[in-house]
């Protein structure tokens, strides 16, 4: 039954938009929260508003989480989960490092091999989910362990450091611009990989919101069978979304290689939670469904919050970080779903009892 079973008790609320929603606290709660962090921690912590102290650090480091979140978001639009993205990122990272460490091949070729490997994983995910009709949650959870095994076969434990050449690292790490902030010692700069990430985000946003493909993906997620009966290639889109997810996750690994230039066996999988959280938190923002900018706002809201807390309670941040991330996710999504329900209730009552046919 697609019609949501909703009781109409809340219809007794006033029909005017509440102050809450008029100032956008529902759809822009992330931005409000972000502003709150900036004001509060900006006043209390000396380092918070320093470009070189926190802002640059958060902006650049979280590009990786943003990429993983987008990798989760893309199949999410077709109601498909990809839980193997963290491991795929690690796969890409270990391949690029290993090729640099043990062969004479150019590092950039290693990056291409890494991306291809992730695409293969994505195609396999698609085959299992679409071809064999295995629930995507299970299929990609299983695949994440297969990828984990492959990673260990490639490089058994331990770090790989300093294997990558300067040319390769600088491809992503050199600054796009760099200038001194007048009157202070701050050096304002952003590296290339930040903009590579931005380009990926713009592409994903454009495809999802401004092309028939994106519309068909959301239709597939909204009601798969209805979409299929309207001529949407639901299977192909599901498959394609998993491959795209893998490509973005692989690219997250490359960004990591540019930023840090190393491989570590604990990199990747732990970022799955923040990525998934950002997508769900982000779905409560702006358009009220999974969307690119809401997701990115969510990543940075959480990141700056954690940065501020870390500055204020440097010895406690270790346990406060997961607590903060978990609670923010639950509260943000809780508020959003509550308001969604009220909205549907109100509209339903409006339509049932007062039918003025108005098209906007």
């Amino acid at each position, binding site marked *: 039954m697609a*019609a949501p079973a909703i009781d109409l008790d809340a219809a007794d609320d006033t029909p005017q938009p509440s102050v809450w929603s008029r100032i956008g606290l529902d759809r822009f709660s992330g931005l409000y929260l972000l502003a709150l962090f900036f004001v509060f921690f900006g006043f209390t912590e000396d380092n918070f508003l320093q470009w070189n102290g926190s802002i640059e650090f958060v902006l650049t480091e979280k590009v990786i989480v943003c990429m993983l979140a987008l990798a989760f978001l893309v199949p999410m639009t077709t109601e498909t989960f990809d839980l193997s993205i963290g491991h795929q990122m690690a796969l890409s990272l270990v391949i690029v490092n290993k090729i640099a460490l043990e062969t004479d091949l150019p590092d950039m070729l290693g990056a291409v091999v890494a991306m291809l490997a992730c695409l293969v994983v994505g195609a396999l995910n698609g085959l299992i989910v679409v071809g064999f009709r295995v629930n995507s949650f299970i299929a990609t959870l299983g695949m994440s362990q297969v990828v984990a095994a492959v990673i260990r076969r490639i490089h058994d434990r331990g770090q790989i450091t300093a294997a990558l050449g300067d040319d390769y690292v600088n491809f992503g790490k050199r600054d796009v611009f760099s200038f001194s902030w007048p009157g202070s010692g701050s050096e304002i700069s952003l590296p290339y990989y930040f903009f590579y990430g931005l380009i990926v985000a713009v592409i994903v946003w454009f495809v999802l919101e401004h092309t028939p493909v994106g519309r068909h993906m959301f239709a597939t997620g909204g009601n798969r069978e209805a979409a299929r009966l309207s001529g949407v290639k639901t299977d192909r889109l599901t498959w394609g979304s998993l491959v795209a997810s893998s490509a973005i996750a692989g690219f997250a690994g490359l960004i990591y290689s540019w930023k840090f230039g190393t491989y570590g066996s604990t990199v990747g999988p732990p970022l799955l939670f923040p990525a998934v959280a950002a997508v769900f938190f982000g779905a409560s923002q702006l358009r009220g469904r999974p969307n690119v900018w809401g997701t990115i706002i969510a990543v940075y809201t959480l990141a700056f919050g954690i940065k501020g807390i870390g500055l204020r309670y440097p010895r406690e941040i270790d346990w406060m970080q997961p607590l903060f991330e978990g609670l923010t996710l639950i509260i943000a999504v809780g508020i959003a779903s509550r308001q969604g329900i009220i909205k549907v209730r109100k509209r339903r009552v*409006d339509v049932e*009892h007062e039918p003025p046919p108005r098209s906007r």
Partner: protein
Amino acid sequence: MSKILTVGSLSKIFPGQVALTDFDIEIEAGSTHALVGQNGSGKSTFIKILAGYHAPDPGAAAHIADQPLPLGDGRAAHGAGVRFVHQDLGIVDALSAVENISMGVGYTTNRWGRIRWTDDTARAVDALDDLGFTDIDVTVPVGSLAPSQRTAVAIARALIGWEDGANLLVLDEPTASLPGADVERLFAAIRRLKQRGVAILYVSHHLDEVFEIADEVTILRDGRRVTTVSTDAVDHEGLIELMIGHKLEKREATKRTAAAGEGGLRVRQLTGGTLLGADLDVGPGEIVGVAGITGSGREMIAPLITGQIPSDDGTVTVGQTPIPNYAPRAAIQAGMAFVPIDRATLGVLPLESVRTNITLADLRRHWRGGRLRHGDERAEAAELIETLSVKTPSTETAVAVLSGGNQQKVLFARSLRLTPQVLVLDDPTTGVDVGAKEEILQLIEQAAATGAAVLVASTDTDEIVRIAHRVVVMVDGRINDEVSGADMTAENIERAQLQTTKAGV
């Protein structure tokens, strides 16, 4: 006679809208009382207040069998012996009939808390037998049962354990998806209950049923009770006039013969499920009705033609283009459009906007210069909303909040926008109120008038007679009969539907 239920001075004001104004109703003990009214007339609000979903505004009074009944209290209504079967049935598709019934009335357990499956199964079988539904496999998921059987499961669940203190059974649109013969089975069950002295409140869009089963009928319009009359004292036309407040502009049914021409729909030896091989041609501009009881193959014909489900054998051709099996996309590209029977699960994207629902099947026309032109798309959606008079606050409203009739119009907009050569419809007016139904039927006629070959499979015989140029009647998986011209009457069709079924008994 004594009154089993009396309600007086019942008002309900939702913010900005009055749903019920000083409504009153009296139901005689042991009688069947129908409640009719267009969508938005307040009848669902009344049922919901009775069931305890809504609290009424202060001042209302209700009595059941002379005992005061607090309105807006579901538990009190249940305790007073009032039972409901709602339109959406409230059954879980993934569970069996036994589980659905036990879920409603409580599992029987032994002292260790283990479910006594044998007892529960026997109870479910007995309850369904009482309704005359002996053909239900109570162990398979109800999702795989026919709509009529699912309805029976819901009613059986409402009736179990209710014999003592039974006062009032409220049936809200119980026949929305039932074919003629099954409706008769349901009515037989209702009559049995009536003999036991149980009063029934029967909510329906099907006025014929009202005349067949009800003793009295209460008409609601704009939240007020227009009148309560004995069903002997009013006729079909009169009842419609009372419901809509003026004479229905009944269009003279156009019985012209279809323009012969190339193209159209061609079906050969189509086989699958209960359908054992159907040959059918529908010419451009022609409307062909398909009648038949559930299980006759009628329910399979539209899904098989449109590729919603895979067929075992046979060919479907649109114009000159053969349609591959189980390929709705290919069918659409060849010029076929269709509205599936179950709009909730097969039709709408509930949380997406009216606009995206309408334009889903063809976005290319708004795809220019490398991006979707949202402004154009909104304009087109607004135009279609206007043309089809869809009642929606805006193009951006989520479809889920619209009424059933308006959701159906959105699906028609999606299909008609493709200007199809072939239009395949399956029970196009299920759960749609009188006004919207007439509008939908006119849309179908317009589509045919502009050259579409239209196939309408329906459980509503009157509807088919009203719009079709000819009607094929399915019996036992095959097309058994065809009627047209003066022979095309509801009586003839219903008799033809039952032919071999009757002979076999």
